[in-house]
């Protein structure tokens, strides 16, 4: 059986590309939704985004610019209208196995206690209950919730629920970690604590992270790279490399001159988009 030369070249290209394939690749992606009123709404337009293996990439942008949509495309929860999304070199056709997703709102199951919440991922994936529970206990301890195994989510504080969500996500060992404004509902002190813990956990996991936030400080403090998305329909406006050394302490890094420099630089970009978005909401309210 003979392959046409072009095909062989193609196969070779994909095979050789595999080890160096970026963790996440979005090419020319447009995503439209149909609103309940029956109108078409474009959330993303012609978006290109590449995230390398082990990279911590933060996405900032004004409200409603399609940041969350980007995550749902990468996770496979939603297909793009136009364009290609691939994760770990494979095109995304459904919900991927190697993906972890921390939601903005509490998405822990309120009818399960902490232990069952954390153990549910492994159990969904076919692990025996005893093994899943043992691993869950380990992760609960790692996020500092040892002793709270039998508590239900409503008995925990917002920060503790977030820790449960983190443990629930990280226990499955995701190679891609998607985070949608995970700490936005927390108070400032808890948030800094959680950010530091996230960096520590990420450091040991080697996962590629896409971290969506509207908080530029948070983005710079955490990420290797900050991507600014335009006011909706969203597309990449600019990309900045954050050359701050690791390990970082989120609480203190904000005072470094380089941090302030980066902040000013990126904020100039972001401000325009925020203003555009703000003007639109004002008009929407007025009309």
């Amino acid at each position, binding site marked *: 059986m003979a392959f046409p030369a072009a095909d062989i070249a193609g196969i070779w290209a994909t095979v050789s590309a595999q080890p160096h394939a970026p963790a996440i690749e979005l090419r020319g992606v447009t995503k439209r939704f149909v609103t309940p009123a029956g109108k078409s709404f474009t959330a993303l337009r012609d978006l290109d985004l590449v995230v390398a293996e082990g990279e911590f990439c933060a996405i900032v942008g004004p409200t409603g610019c399609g940041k969350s949509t980007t995550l749902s495309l990468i996770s496979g929860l939603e297909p793009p209208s136009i364009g290609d999304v691939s994760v770990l070199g494979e095109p995304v056709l459904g*919900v991927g*196995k190697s993906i972890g*997703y921390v939601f903005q709102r509490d*998405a822990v199951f309120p009818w399960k206690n902490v232990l069952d919440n954390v153990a549910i991922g492994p159990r*969904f994936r076919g692990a025996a209950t005893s093994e899943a529970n043992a691993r869950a206990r380990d992760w609960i301890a790692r996020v500092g919730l040892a002793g709270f195994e039998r*508590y239900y989510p409503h008995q925990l504080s917002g920060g503790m629920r977030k820790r449960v969500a983190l443990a629930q996500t990280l226990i*499955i060992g995701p190679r891609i970690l998607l985070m949608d404004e995970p700490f936005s509902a927390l108070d400032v002190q808890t948030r800094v604590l959680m950010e530091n813990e996230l960096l520590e956990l990420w450091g040991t996991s080697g996962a590629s992270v896409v971290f969506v936030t509207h908080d530029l400080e948070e983005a710079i403090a955490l990420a290797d790279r900050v991507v600014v998305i335009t006011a909706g329909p969203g597309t990449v406006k600019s990309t900045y490399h954050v050359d701050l050394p690791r390990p970082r302490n989120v609480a203190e890094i904000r005072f470094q001159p380089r941090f302030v420099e980066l902040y000013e630089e990126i904020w100039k970009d972001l401000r325009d988009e925020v203003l555009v978005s703000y003007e639109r909401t004002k008009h929407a309210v007025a009309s």
Partner: protein
Amino acid sequence: MSARSTLSRLSGTDLAPAPVAEDRDVARRRARARRRALIIALRIALAVTVVGVWEAGTRIACDGVDTASCVIDKFFFGQPSGIWAQLVTWVRNGTAQGPLWEQIVVTLEETVLGFAIGVVLGVIFGVLLGRNRLLADVAGPYIKAMNAMPRVVLGSIFTIALGLGMASKVALAVVLVFFVVFFNAFQGVREVDRDLLANARILGASQRLLSRHVILPSALSWITASLHTSFGFALVGAIVGEYLGARKGIGLMIATAQGTFNANGVYAAMLILAIVAILAEALVTRLEDHLIRWRPNAITDVTI
């Protein structure tokens, strides 16, 4: 801790009077206790007044010949002492169709069976149609039509088809319970939090696991909300079924009392029914607390 308690003991007995804040709490607690006692006293007074006026009305201004001459005619409206006498008779000598406890047990059995079958069917169909859009769209109009119909009339059909035994009552109770639970389960499935569904899918849940771990528990709070109503409906189904034709049961006691113009008998049976319903209601509440113990107000204490 010990130093503090010593201090408070000292300040309480030897030194200064207790702090003002503590005083207010004590006073507040006392006021609450007083209020509770007042409410209970007023409740008893209300019952005594109503029963007393009723009883007195059947004895005032009577000419000694015709009960119709009294303020309240006990022939039509009954009389508390007569109701009590009727209850005593039933307990001591049994009813026209057998011992009293047997009637209660039969009605309860029909109610509980009808309730259980109705709930299970309602949940199954509710979840099935809630999960399957096509099925819901196809079956929707028929279910609405069946729900619009006053289903008590089905009792006649069931009595004809299933006879005077327990089956016809259970069937009527099932039909009454089913729709209440069905609509709640259906709505509950439709209202599942989208983030929770997405989270479960990301964590690797198959469709079957999704139903079991996310959709059913989420719908449970809707379903349990319907249990109180539907237990009442189950009791209605059993009683109406017995009323339409039966050999045993509280409904039959009421029908018999009505047939012999025994107003006291109807009231006495109603009283029994009310007590049975209140006890059953307490059991349903316990069941509900167990099913949704993860909800904030359902939890009393957690020990680890």
